[in-house]
């Protein structure tokens, strides 16, 4: 049934399986190896063999897991609406899978073992078959084990059925990734043993002395004491860093110098895919502006910029128009500045642009802790929990905190225990509202964002003070009017939670392994997801199977995305039209965060099933692992439909614990 058949042995593209990096697919080769831009591919059937093969990266030999013997995997290109068949054969000893990232496939073709299908067993061939109503730049990768880290990822382009609104003379795909010669399970074990195993950007005694001479000893000390008191580091920016990673562009390290050619004056379209396991990149081309024309595959109103921060799993299409007869560097710099990958664009093959030096390591601020808030009038607050006490009290004594006034006199603190905290938020409004945390706490939740704020108009960690333009999410506008502009009928609030010290990551304090019920949406329902980042790290959050409209003030031209970075201490919102029936994975796309439990499933339940329930599933069902998410589930539901944007309803109710 359903396109699943066992397949034993004969050669299906295995000829290339031991080819190594010299046999890169044409799209991933350098100009010096004959790549002068993508060629249009036609075809509707693709054979993909997942296996192990040797690779050579930066002059060193390694061992990859991937598709058809190349790293990255072959480019899959087809046309919008065209039915395609993809035969995936597993030549590994372990299960594998392919997830088509950002594609609106039927859910049983989405490729997540245990969620949308059983996975692909060793020796088996699984046939994916679908037609999708979309075009743009996407990618595909394994959703099994930690194979993504080992090389199991590749680009996917869907050409539009009609005319492309983006005009260009030449195009390239740039797949950014992070390669390690260490086994991914070893990386994870080291993070569990010591979460700062790969952090060589910590603050030292020397940094302290420098700060002391700049700001004065007392202030430097109290600043250190504030972080130390919370048992946190303002340099926890990336968990896995350049200490083990070689950053790659199309499988090439900086040393390997991927190079592309252009004729001066041409419009060149770069389809940039962040296929990393763990690395958020800052992307720039010194001396050359980039015009962003698509985000996550879908067209946006062209916006010119000089740099952008790119979450894992996001894609951006940019147009560059190099006019000078010179080499330009394309720089993908890891967010923690522990390394970068540099490629070259030049008028002739084989040119090598000068790699810029790494910029100084950014340091997190109180804002990243959701503490940079107007704490005016909060003297009456009393928190029983030791950690909260540290945070709030020491935080308030911090010099240099940005205290601005908010009318918080109306606050009513019913409980002294965080687990039972109840805030009457009626006197507050807007994004600055103090956060309720009615999710699970305990060893897995080291901190909670007290005052999360919107940060969509910020460029991202480390890019606040650069001397050129940086794209923000607030700049993005969909090129086409949003198809669904209904206000949300219901709101969910989901906290991104962690204990960095124990390397525990979760949603609402519940690891995926502890989830007893998925997040339920009903077909046709318009639902707002409010994501609150309680952690000190940015998380690229990905929802399978559907695009969401990111609430960035864009009205009916809000950007539609499949992945969004939620910055530390940020609260953001997106709306989902529950059109695509099925169970869809929903997770942080930082691979080891997902592996540690920062994942759930969003189930879109068809109408007419189970009595045609239109009510939020599990509204009064206390057994669910994520019962705290349904913020309107008690008495606010009807009100919510009348006033869907009113924050009070999301916040004005007590904890469950």
């Amino acid at each position: 049934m359903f396109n699943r058949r066992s397949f034993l042995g004969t050669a299906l593209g295995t000829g290339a399986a031991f080819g190594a990096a010299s046999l890169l697919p044409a799209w991933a080769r350098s100009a010096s190896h004959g790549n002068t831009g993508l060629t249009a591919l036609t075809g509707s059937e693709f054979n993909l063999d997942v296996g192990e093969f040797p690779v050579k990266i930066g002059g060193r030999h390694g061992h990859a897991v991937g598709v058809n013997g190349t790293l990255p995997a072959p480019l899959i290109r087809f046309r919008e609406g065209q039915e395609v068949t993809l035969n995936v054969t597993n030549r590994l000893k372990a299960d594998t899978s392919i997830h088509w990232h950002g594609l609106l496939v039927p859910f049983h073709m989405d490729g997540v073992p245990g969620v949308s299908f059983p996975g692909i067993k060793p020796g088996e061939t699984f046939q994916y078959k679908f037609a999708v109503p979309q075009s743009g730049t996407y990618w595909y990768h394994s959703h099994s084990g930690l194979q993504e880290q080992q090389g199991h990822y590749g680009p996917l382009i869907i050409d539009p059925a009609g005319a492309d609104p983006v005009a260009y003379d030449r195009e390239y795909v740039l797949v950014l990734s992070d390669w390690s010669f260490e086994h991914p399970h070893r990386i994870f074990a080291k993070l569990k043993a010591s979460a700062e195993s790969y952090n060589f950007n910590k603050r030292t005694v020397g940094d302290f002395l420098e700060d002391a001479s700049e700001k004065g000893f007392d202030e430097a000390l109290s600043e250190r004491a504030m972080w130390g008191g919370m048992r946190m580091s303002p340099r926890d920016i990336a968990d896995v860093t350049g200490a083990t990673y070689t950053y790659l562009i199309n499988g090439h390290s900086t040393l390997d110098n991927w190079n592309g050619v252009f004729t001066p004056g041409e419009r060149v379209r770069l389809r940039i895919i962040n296929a990393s396991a763990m690395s958020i990149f800052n992307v720039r081309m010194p001396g050359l502006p980039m015009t962003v024309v698509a985000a996550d595959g879908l067209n946006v109103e062209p916006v010119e910029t000089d740099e952008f921060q790119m979450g894992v799993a996001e894609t951006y299409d940019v147009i560059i128009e190099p006019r000078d007869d010179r080499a330009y560097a394309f720089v993908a710099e890891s967010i923690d500045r522990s390394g970068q990958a540099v490629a070259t664009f030049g008028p002739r093959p084989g040119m090598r642009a000068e790699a810029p030096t790494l910029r100084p390591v950014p340091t997190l601020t109180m804002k990243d802790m959701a503490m940079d808030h107007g704490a005016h009038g909060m003297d009456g607050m009393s928190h029983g929990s030791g950690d909260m006490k540290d945070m709030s009290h020491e935080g308030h004594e911090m010099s240099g905190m940005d205290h601005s006034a908010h009318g918080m006199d109306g606050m009513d603190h019913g409980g002294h225990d965080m687990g039972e905290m109840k805030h009457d938020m009626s006197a507050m409004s807007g994004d600055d509202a103090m956060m309720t945390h009615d999710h699970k706490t305990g060893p897995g939740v080291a901190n909670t964002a007290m005052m999360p704020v919107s940060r969509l108009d910020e460029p991202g960690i480390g890019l606040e003070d650069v001397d050129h333009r940086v794209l923000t999410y607030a700049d993005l506008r969909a090129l086409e009017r949003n198809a669904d502009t209904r206000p949300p009928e219901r709101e969910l609030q989901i906290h991104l939670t962690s204990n960095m010290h124990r390397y525990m990551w979760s949603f609402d304090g519940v690891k995926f392994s502890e989830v007893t019920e998925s997040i339920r949406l009903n077909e046709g329902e318009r639902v707002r997801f409010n994501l609150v980042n309680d952690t000190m790290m940015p998380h690229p959050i990905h929802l399978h199977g559907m695009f969401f409209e990111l609430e960035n003030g864009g009205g009916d031209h809000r950007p539609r995305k499949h992945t969004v970075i939620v910055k530390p201490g940020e609260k953001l919102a997106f709306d989902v039209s529950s059109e695509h029936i099925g169970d869809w994975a929903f997770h942080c796309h930082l691979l080891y965060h997902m592996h540690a439990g920062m994942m759930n499933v969003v189930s879109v339940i068809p109408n007419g099933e189970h009595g045609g329930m239109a009510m939020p599933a599990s509204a009064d069902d206390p057994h669910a692992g994520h019962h705290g998410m349904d913020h309107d589930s008690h008495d606010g539901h009807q009100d919510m439909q009348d006033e869907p944007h009113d924050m009070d309803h999301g916040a004005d109710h007590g904890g469950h614990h």
Partner: protein
Amino acid sequence: MRQLMTFRAAILSCSALALVPSAIGEEGDKPWSQADDIWGEEAMAEARAEVLEKHGDIRSTYIQAERFELQSSDDEDVILLDGNAWIGGDINKLWIKSELEYLPDEGEFEEAEIQALWSRAISPYFDLQTGVRYDFEPEGLAHLVIGAQGLAPYLFELDSAAFLSEEGDLTARVEAEYELLLSQRLILQPRAEIALSASDIPEREIGAGVSQIDAGLRLRYEIKREFAPYIGIEWHQRFGQTADYIEAEGGESGEAVFLIGLRAWY
């Protein structure tokens, strides 16, 4: 409008309850199940169990020689191995701790103990540890152990435990460590260990109260995070009756030792 919707919701709830109680019961067992109809219940059940387990319920192992060092004083040399290992998940772990003191000149162990502890995460930064300790040297002696280990505010590593021996004697130890990064790899670690006893235990040469304090500085270089040789100095001071026992044997109640050692983990 509002009333109408309430009414509709109520009707729907009632009809749902009446129509599909069995379905709700079944669904309750599975966190999601829509793919079951397509790929079969059995195949999906297996894959679902696996995807859940592999995203959060990970068992890890860790083994560490925290202090493997030669302690050299005027008196004598001691080789110390302070080792730890654990296996388990985020919340529950089996911890093994051992401390061996070997006298190379005499070719014998001065002290040898091992602890087996159930370590349970009780807060973001602390584990409660309970279990048993057995001393092989200087004499065979079993203890019950209860302790707490974790990271205190201001980033002090703490390990404290109380020991009730089979003889009924109650003793305790508190260890505290701190790390000063001179560079990303050169780390100065102040460390102090305090031993206490509820009573005089003459056969173990321990006096009541604070019996001993060891305070030292270790300077290590992390060639890799997992592999760091070090040098250091430490002061060992016995107090009260404990000091008297040592002095009666001709030993010193206080002594400085020089350290050279290795900190390593996997």
